[in-house]
Each structure stands twice: as C-alpha cells, then as structure tokens.
C-alpha cells in the first residue's frame, strides 16, 4: 500500500471569536473525527499541527512548532488564518507566545507563516475582509490576511472562505479541492478570491421566499409569511449557497428561521450591512464598487 501523504496545516487565530473553529467542528460528512484521524481524500491526511483550541500541548513547545513547520515543510503546508490581523500599536493588541521573554505580536507569526506557506486559506469574514474587528472605527487597525499580505509584500496565493461564521462545508470543500486538484484555477474563483462552487450564487436568486418578493408580499414583523426585504434582509446583496446547502446538516438556515440575511459573507459586513434590520437603500447600489486593494465593497459616492 502506498504511504499516506500528510498535508501539514497550521491554523492560526488572530482577532477572532473562535466561531469559525466551532463551525468547522460541526461538519457532518466528513465528520470532524474523519478530518482529524482519517484520510480526508484517498491517500491524503490533514496533519493539523497547530490549532490552539484543540491541540494537546501548550506554551513554548508549541510556539517552536511554528518555526519547525516553516523549516521542515517550506511552501508545502497550508496556513489557515482565522480572525483579523490587528496592526495598530506594533501589533500588540494580539500576542501569541514569547521569544526571549518578549511577547510576539500575532502579525509577526502571520507574516512568517504566510510567506513560507503553499497557500493561505482566509477562514471567515474577519480573515477574509476584516469583519467585525475592522468595523468602524476599527480600534486596533485590524485587517484581512490578504490585505496584510499585500502590505508586507507576501505573494503566497490566498483563498477567501468568508462567512460569520462560514459553513463547514465551504472550508472542508475548499481543503478537499486543494488536496484533490491543487490550488483552484482563476476561473474557479470569483473576483474576491472566493470559490464559485460555494459563493457563485446570490442568496436572493435561490431564496425559498423569492416567490413572495416577486409578487410583492412583504413581511412587516417577525413571524409573518412574506419576503423579509422590509425587515432588512440583505439576501439580494450576498453571495452564498445558504438557501440550497442550509446549515447544521441541512436542518435550517437564517431565512427559513424567519430571520433576515445580514450579509455576513460579504466585504461590507458589518458596516455596509448596518442597520441590519432596515432595508438597504437601492439608490446606493450603483455607487457600490469593489476596492482592488482591500477587497472591500465601497461606496464610490458616499455623499449621496
């Protein structure tokens, strides 16, 4: 029998709530035990070398593991970045471990690990676009990992898997894709570096309440039948397969639960999607554009 190929993975957590990790634990098929112990794809096993919420070890030995991984597997490990990178005040708003008695800013780990990785998976909206920590007024100078890599001239390819949190299938599907086919080709990614497989369709186009929208039947309070547009739904601005895949093994999802979509997969979350329970003003739509550098949705003419 051929030897199993081990894919080293370093999972780094920055300005995060750990919700992305918990979401991935909710994967049904494969289960998280499959992911940790078994071959995710035939002959390929994820060697999860670093994950602060799950790993047995603590302290200095695991900090050494980070540089060991960079040296032992140059350009052949995957960096999963969860959370945004706080860059203000020399990065001291997030510290992980010590070197020579001095705390190491998370951004230095992120820089070294991203530089030497085969690819970076930006997991969740914070890592993908900055998310809530980067929400106005962004007190810690938080930025997404692709934005941070551009600032520090790191050219490693990055794939965004946004969502607050992302569906586990989006992450595990992305990893499985890389294992089976290598890095996604440009035509498989949208203009924001998300896999079209998961983020190719507008929620509005597949929404079970779409019929209400088309016939103008609007819900005006929670618990009512009707389209949730007037209650603030951002499903017509948000790209994801939530209506088809649903959540937690297909049991439910926000709109089926009577709750409007808050657009958590998009670069505009949370600032552009707020107020969450007010309808978005269509007249602003033509003024939306995607900032080439930060990947954020921005108004071209905010004065209007």
């Amino acid at each position: 029998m051929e030897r199993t190929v081990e894919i080293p993975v370093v999972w780094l957590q920055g300005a995060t709530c750990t919700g992305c990790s918990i979401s991935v634990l909710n994967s049904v098929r494969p289960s998280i035990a499959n992911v940790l112990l078994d071959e995710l794809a035939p002959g390929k096993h994820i060697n999860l070398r670093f994950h602060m919420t799950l790993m047995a070890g603590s302290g200095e030995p695991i900090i050494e593991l980070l540089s060991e991984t960079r040296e032992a597997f140059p350009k052949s490990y995957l960096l999963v970045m969860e959370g945004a990178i706080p860059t203000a005040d020399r990065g001291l708003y997030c510290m992980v471990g010590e070197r020579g008695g001095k705390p190491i800013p998370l951004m230095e780990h992120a820089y070294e690990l991203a530089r030497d990785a085969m690819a970076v998976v930006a997991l969740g909206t914070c890592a993908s676009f900055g998310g809530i920590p980067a929400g106005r007024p962004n007190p810690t100078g938080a930025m997404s990992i692709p934005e941070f890599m551009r600032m520090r001239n790191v050219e490693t390819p990055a794939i965004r898997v946004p969502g607050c949190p992302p569906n586990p299938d989006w992450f595990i599907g992305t990893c499985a894709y890389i294992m089976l086919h290598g890095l996604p080709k440009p035509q498989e990614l949208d203009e924001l570096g998300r896999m079209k497989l998961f983020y190719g369709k507008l929620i509005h186009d597949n929404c079970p309440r779409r019929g209400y929208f088309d016939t103008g039947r609007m819900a005006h309070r929670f618990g009512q039948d009707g389209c949730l547009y007037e209650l603030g739904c951002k499903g017509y601005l948000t790209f994801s397969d939530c209506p088809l895949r649903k959540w937690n093994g297909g049991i439910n999802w926000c709109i089926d639960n009577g709750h409007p979509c808050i657009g958590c997969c998009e670069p505009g979350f949370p600032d552009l999607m707020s107020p969450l329970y007010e309808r978005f003003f269509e007249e602003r739509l033509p003024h939306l554009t995607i900032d080439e550098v930060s990947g954020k949705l921005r108004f071209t003419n905010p004065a209007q």
Partner: protein
Amino acid sequence: MRKITIDPMTRIEGHLKIEVVLDEKDIIVDARSSGVLYRGIELILKGRDPRDAARLTQRVCGVCPVPHGTASAFSLDAAFGISDKIPDNGRILRNLILGSEYVHNHILHFYHLSSLDYVDMAKASEYKENDFDRLKQFIQRGYLAPFVPRYEGDYRLRDEDNKALALHYLHALEMRRKAHEMLSLFGGRTPIQAGIVAGGVTCEPTTDKIVSFLWRVNELRDFIVNAYLPDVERIARAYSDCFEIGVGCKRLLSFGFFDLDGSEPDYQKRKRLMKQGSTDNSLVYKQLDVSRISESVRHSWYTDDGMPNVEKEGAYSFIKSPRYDGSAHEVGPLARILISYAYGDENVKEELDGVLQRLSVGIEAMFSLMGRHIARAVEAKLIADALAEWVLKLKPGEPAYIPYEMPSEAEGVGLVDAPRGCLGHWIGIQNGLIANYSIISPTTWNASPKDDSENHGPIEQALIGTKVRDPENPFEVVRVVRSFDPCLACAVHMFGSHGRKLGEAKLIA
C-alpha cells in the same frame, strides 16, 4: 524561585497567558493571568442601530454566542419597555436555544478542552479491541498532531477507564455537534444563531420541530447520563488529589438563568431554573444585588477612562478586574450549582448529593478543580432534563414575538448566566443610536488580574498554593486553569470607567 510561563494557554477559547512563580519546594507563590487580545467591540457598537447589538455582540464569542445574543436582547427588551411582555413561546424558545448551547458547551469543555490532561490517547495503540482500529491506524501513520506534543508523565487512568474516555472523546465530537443541530431547529443556524431578537424569537414553533427537538435532546440526555457523568467520576477517582487543588476564592456569584416566568421585569428577581445570588463556603444563600459590582483597571492595559494603553506601567492584561462587594468572586457552573444548592433547590441537591456520595466526598470538596468538572456535568444533566420538559410547553400557532416602538432615548440592562458564568449587557441609547454599550462577561470575573487592593483574581487565587510536582510538565497548572473553562474573547471587554458602580445604570426601563 523559578518562573513558568505558559503562553499560549491552549484548549481554551482565545488568547491567554499564564505565569506562575514557584518557591524552592515547587509550590506556586504568585500567579498572573493575562488576556492578550483586544478588539474593542464596544467602540465598534457605538453609533449603530441598537437592534444590531443582538447580532453583533454574538461575535464577542463564537463558542458561546447565544448568551451574548440573549443578554443583548434582554437589554433591548428592557430599554424598549417590553421585558415583561415577551410571549411565553418567545421565552421558552430563548430557553431552548440557550439550553442547547449549554449542552454543547459542557460536552465540548469536558471532553475536548479538558480530558486530554487526564486521558492517554497514545495508549490506544496497545488496545486490542476493534473499537480502536481507527485510532491505531492514525497512530501508525506516525503523525500524532494535534495530540502531541503534550505534557508527559501523569496519566493515571486504569486501562478500562482510559479506553472508555478515549472512545468517548471521539463520540463526544458527534454529540456536541448534535447539540448544535438541536439548537439550530429554532436558532436558524449555529454557531451565531439567527433567532433571538429584541421582542422574542423570529420563528414560530411547529409540531415537527418540537418532536425533532425532543428526540434530539433525549439522545443527548442518554449520553450525559451514560457517558459524561460516569466519565467525570472515573477521572475524579483516579485523580483524587484534584479535590485538593485549585480551591480558589470560595466566593461565588450567579446572575442565574432559564426564565421560568416572564412577568417580572427585573432580571435580578425573575424566577429562574438556576438561581441568581451569591454564596461562599458557608453555603448561606444571598440575594443578587448588581449595584455591588465595581471594576478596577489598576493592572489592566487601560487608561482610567477605559481607552486601551499598552504602555501602562504595572499592567499585565487586557482583562479588567470586576469585584462584587469589593472582593473577587468565581462565576460559572460551580457557582450556579452551589448557589442553587444553598438556596435549597431540591433537584440540584439530589443530583449533586448522589455524585458526592458515589465518590465518598463531602460538599466542601466541591471547592476544587474537580468540583468544577462535577458541577458542570451535573448542570448539563439538569438543563437537558429541563429542555425535554419545556419543549412540550410550546404552543404552535401562537406568537413568539411582540412588536415594539423603538425609543430615541433609553437605557437597558440584560442579565443572564452564560455557560461560563455571569454575563451582563448594558446599553445606552441616544438619538435612536447606541451611545454606549458595556459588557461584563464570565471570564472577566474568573481570569481577572489583581485589583486596586492588590487582591488576585479567582484563577490566580486557585493557582497560588498549588504544588507543581514536575515543573517541566506542569499538569497541575493547566488542569486548574482549564477547570474554569476560560473564554478570552469574552473576557476582554470594557465595562465603565475606573471604579464606576453598576448601580448608576438603570436596571429596568
């Protein structure tokens, strides 16, 4: 004297650094707990629509987002003057959503965050039973992450117990997931549910979901009774010294939770399954009075008016130091169980006394590292039992939400107990927008640094006096810290300015 620094402290939520100083007999004489991530969520909330807080504050913590969503919705209910008008369906659904979160959290904490300090997973390679084939295959491949590196030495379980716990570690991964699936029946999805809002819950209960919830919770009850509780007892027997260490401050505080009745607008007085109040090792019950809470930033990286300052002299944490009646209080399952015990709750007494009897220890042994694990498991059972009862009280066809007028000026407070302890959200609304928002959360209490009077926080107190048998493999330190189930993303929050009393905020609208 020798110092041990554990940074990062893993298998907790978030970014925690623990430093302990040992004397020549390897007894801990000083301890420091430092929160090392700051996001400034309260600053980000300012100027937004108040209703958004029930969504955005869930992102304070992705391990326990529901309590934040609930506390936030409670504070909004209070600010909007409807805290006593939530329909019964809404009250029950909130209990079911948060109760499912508790079940997920307690299983996750015991098996996946704690048990690797006691269970020797590597021993699976020696076991002959087929059940271990998959673990053996994994071990034979030779790449043992994330189970190695680890501390080596003190793994004491008998083979039969080690086998049970190793298999239950894997089984519990599934059971925890199933608790989340149960949550999403009424929560829409999870983590970060989309159900609880100001005014109630967005979905209405239907019979198919009620039955589905019931079957799911019964499967989880079965796991709690036949695996979780016995496994805690297995560890308690093999590691009996864990009843003697990690004692802590012996002062306990709870805001209580699971509203049994929604007609009382003051959350301090509301009838709850787990009682709000305080107690200490005398086990005399005292009523809750949140005006006794104060907060110190003497050793925290903040200026006196609450802005972050990483250069501050003498500071060692982004966590502040909340105190009740001027002293450190432990919060969480141990506090809730013993406060309800002191209150005289029959169910709590019966369950807890049963476990203590089987382990041949007295109630005083609960003030320990192992006491926290026992309290958590007992609580998981009590809550899962209650969920099975409550779900049948839902009334399909009746509303779960009440509409309201949003005032342009208002204040509100929401108090709940999260799986890890006391959680309060305070909101101030001006011109229809959030003017200020304050969160005081469980791990802020437990992992707090020293206060104005140089008194240590509860985790620091629990570490001081502990003997570390092997400083190269400081099992005692990580076991004590993890018994508190720290959540650092929650812990780092701003409450008010230096020394401000909570009594200044209005409790009910």
